[in-house]
């Protein structure tokens, strides 16, 4: 993966930059020793590493503003970082950058049950937002699988999803307002406790902009009362196509499950060996979860089962209790760990129209044979968000490159059938150079024009999202201005 050559002129100014940052931050909030900056050398896309020049850990919006103003004046690129759980390399540093971590900003500022909102600092982890309101029966809906560790800042940057977004939507549908600091240090509020924008929907634009438009320090989030209960049904099929048709029929029937998860045979086999969840050995497995009172759940599960029976399932198991639910979810929740037991893996994140599912799975199988790399598919089937896990051996020379090539082919296929490169992980550096596949020149130009407005010097996370050749002239303006 190509990254811009670090600017030696910036690195030569390190001592002065550190000194200026120390003047506005507590001593322990400026990290510049090379042994310590190494802690920030990568995120969860661990194949790529580069220690930053400096890392800072501000604890207030004002400190964030001071840091950005200084970096703006010095012409130093800034890479914002939440908890560093990005699978796309969104928080990967360059050697000439300042990492701005918001981890110390994790307070709950306001909890307002009457208006069903919570205001938090964005270093707070996703799960601890729910933690702050669950004793009163509330929760924050977006639930990325890294929710124990991932920060709201990163959720907003990547517009994170989760398993339950079929019903509750993704981050952008649950984000009411933000306080954001622009690269020049200006602090601006967008949205708040009200539901719609008074002018242009800049909040919607900010969400998912991968830390390239500003640093979000506070967020107003929608909270909901927990449902009375939730239970899944597990359905096994001996054919992918039939499973896909079943998903489509469930959706058409007017039942709106909170989640429809799909696993294919390689994934079922791996998880059974690992977690022993008692899954049937078959080609495709669906886990469909519904919510409500006990009677409401029974009614919906029966409707779903009726539909499933028309498709001749090899297994149909309705959960009747919390224990049975846990057992059904056990395998799905262990899927990534199970695949990781077999080998290193790369997790893809393309989305496809649900109707293309059988075709795409067939093609992925053919590619797997072609590249000689095994792949297991876990899939949010209700919304078409795929997670093919490609197995490779990081210690075997050339295997990572082969795996990346395979992954790129899968993502191109997603676009070809009418889908997209990434459903919830973001572009980062991982899919940056594939953006040409989905977007034409004018499409990318319109997006980069937005960055020109928010960050004219292209200092915030500059080497991400857009192919380097597409953003080169814009980044060069910054260099020329120095």
């Amino acid at each position, binding site marked *: 993966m190509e990254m811009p050559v670090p600017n030696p002129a910036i690195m030569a100014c390190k001592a002065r930059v550190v000194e200026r940052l120390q003047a506005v931050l507590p001593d322990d909030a400026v990290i510049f020793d090379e042994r310590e900056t190494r802690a920030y050398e990568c995120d969860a896309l661990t194949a790529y590493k580069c220690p930053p020049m400096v890392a800072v850990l501000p604890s207030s919006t004002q400190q964030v503003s001071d840091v950005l103003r200084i970096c703006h004046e010095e012409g130093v690129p800034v890479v914002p970082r939440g908890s560093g759980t990005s699978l796309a390399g969104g928080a990967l540093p360059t050697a000439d950058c300042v990492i701005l971590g918001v981890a110390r900003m994790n307070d709950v500022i306001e909890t307002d049950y009457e208006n069903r909102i919570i205001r938090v600092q964005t270093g707070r982890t996703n799960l601890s937002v729910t933690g702050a309101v669950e004793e009163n029966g509330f929760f924050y809906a977006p639930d990325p699988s890294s929710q124990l560790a991932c920060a709201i800042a990163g959720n907003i940057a990547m517009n994170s999803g989760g398993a339950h977004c079929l019903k509750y939507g993704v981050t952008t549908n649950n984000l009411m307002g933000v306080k954001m600091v622009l690269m020049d240090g200006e602090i601006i509020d967008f949205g708040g406790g009200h539901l719609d924008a008074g002018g242009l929907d800049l909040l919607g634009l900010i969400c*998912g902009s991968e830390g390239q438009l500003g640093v979000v320090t506070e967020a107003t989030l929608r909270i909901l009362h927990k449902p009375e209960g939730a239970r899944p049904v597990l359905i096994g099929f001996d054919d992918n196509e039939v499973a896909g048709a079943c998903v489509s029929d469930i959706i058409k029937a007017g039942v709106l499950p909170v989640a429809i998860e799909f696993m294919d045979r390689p994934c079922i086999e791996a998880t059974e060996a690992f977690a022993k969840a008692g899954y049937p050995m078959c080609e495709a497995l669906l886990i469909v979860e519904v919510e409500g009172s006990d009677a409401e759940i029974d009614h919906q599960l029966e409707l779903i089962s009726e539909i499933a029976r028309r498709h001749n399932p090899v297994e149909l198991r309705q959960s009747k209790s919390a224990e049975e639910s846990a057992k059904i979810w056990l395998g799905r929740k262990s899927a990534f760990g199970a695949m990781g037991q077999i080998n290193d893996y790369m997790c893809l994140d393309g989305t496809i129209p649900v109707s293309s599912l059988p075709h795409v799975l067939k093609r992925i199988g053919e590619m797997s044979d072609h590249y000689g790399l095994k792949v297991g598919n876990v899939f949010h089937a209700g919304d078409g968000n795929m997670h093919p896990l490609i197995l490779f051996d990081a210690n075997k020379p050339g295997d990572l490159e082969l795996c990346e090539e395979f992954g790129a082919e899968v993502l191109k296929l997603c676009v070809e059938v009418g889908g997209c490169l990434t459903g919830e992980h973001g572009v980062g550096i991982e899919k940056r150079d594939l953006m040409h596949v989905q977007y034409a020149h004018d499409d990318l130009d319109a997006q980069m024009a937005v960055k020109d407005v928010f960050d004219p010097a292209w200092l915030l996370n500059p080497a991400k999202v857009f192919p380097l050749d597409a953003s080169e002239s814009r980044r060069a303006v910054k260099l020329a201005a120095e």
Partner: protein
Amino acid sequence: MDITSEDALVDAVKGASGALAVRGGGTRGVPAVGDVLSVAGLNGISLYEPGALTLVAQPGTPVADIEAALAQENQRLAFEPMDHRGLLGTTGTPTIGGVMAANVSGPRRISVGAARDFLLGVRFVDGRGAIVKNGGRVMKNVTGYDLVKLMAGSFGTLGVLTEVSMKVLPRPETQATLVLLGLDDVGGVSALARALGSPFEVTGAAHDPAAQKTMLRIEGFETSVAYRLGQLRALLTTTGAEMDVLDEKASESMWMTVRDVAAFQGQSGDIWRVSCKPSDGPAIAARSGAEAWFYDWAGGLIWLRAAPGHDVRTQIGTFDGHATLVRADASTMAQFGMFHPETAGVARLTAGLRAQFDPKGIFNAGLMENAA
């Protein structure tokens, strides 16, 4: 100018020297100036996959055509777009492009989201005449910046839509509405908040002070609707209010009147629309100096009818939200501006985006340019 193809639109934009008033059905009372650029001729549903809950259409497609196609598959536009004609006295045919350009959402916005939350992808022609696409036709998509949200509610100021992809939802089996009688504004809004803070999935929450009626809509399978109505009744007994239930038919027509602001149709005066934090609603309405009002979105949306030329915005003062002037004579509209003044930072970013997307400043010039 009547546009009938994307190519023709590109030519029209490239050739334009003065302001263009971008128009779909022209039913939403947008005070745009310049030569009318109508996209009503870009009409038709190009893709509808009921099993994937997606529909793709050209912007001039009548909302009614889309609703009819969806009804055949027992689906619907869940965000319940308002029809402005009754309130504004406009004629013409509401289009899906207009719905998206104005981010028009109805009572169900509180539970399922706004028009912008259902817009999956767009194609548009920017002010240079470039064709831009963003998003797509899948529900989960974080590939690049979300220009889809930016276009939703941009009132044609950044570009002219040529295609919209939407998420649609199944139509529930039935619905019913619980009505609480005799509560005042504060009591009504507080009851709505309690209902929305429950697990019973309320999909409409309105309070009408004139009739002292507080309304809660429940949708879903028949047995489930009955169960949740019972639970809500029990939850709200402490309000002391008498309660009544509207069955499916009555409930449907009642929410249609809320959606289309039937209470103020045919009445004289200016119409304002205030978006605020729900619990702030009663105090804002009380100090607005308006003659009449009612609440949707659990108090977070207030429709106000005020004496002609009365400055509701100044009267309300500073609050978390904004006030839009929806209906007034031309001079009042020009004096106050349709849109709420923005803070300096937001106004500067907005101006910057417009300069990027529409460098010649031709699309709906003057609209949405109301800095504080």
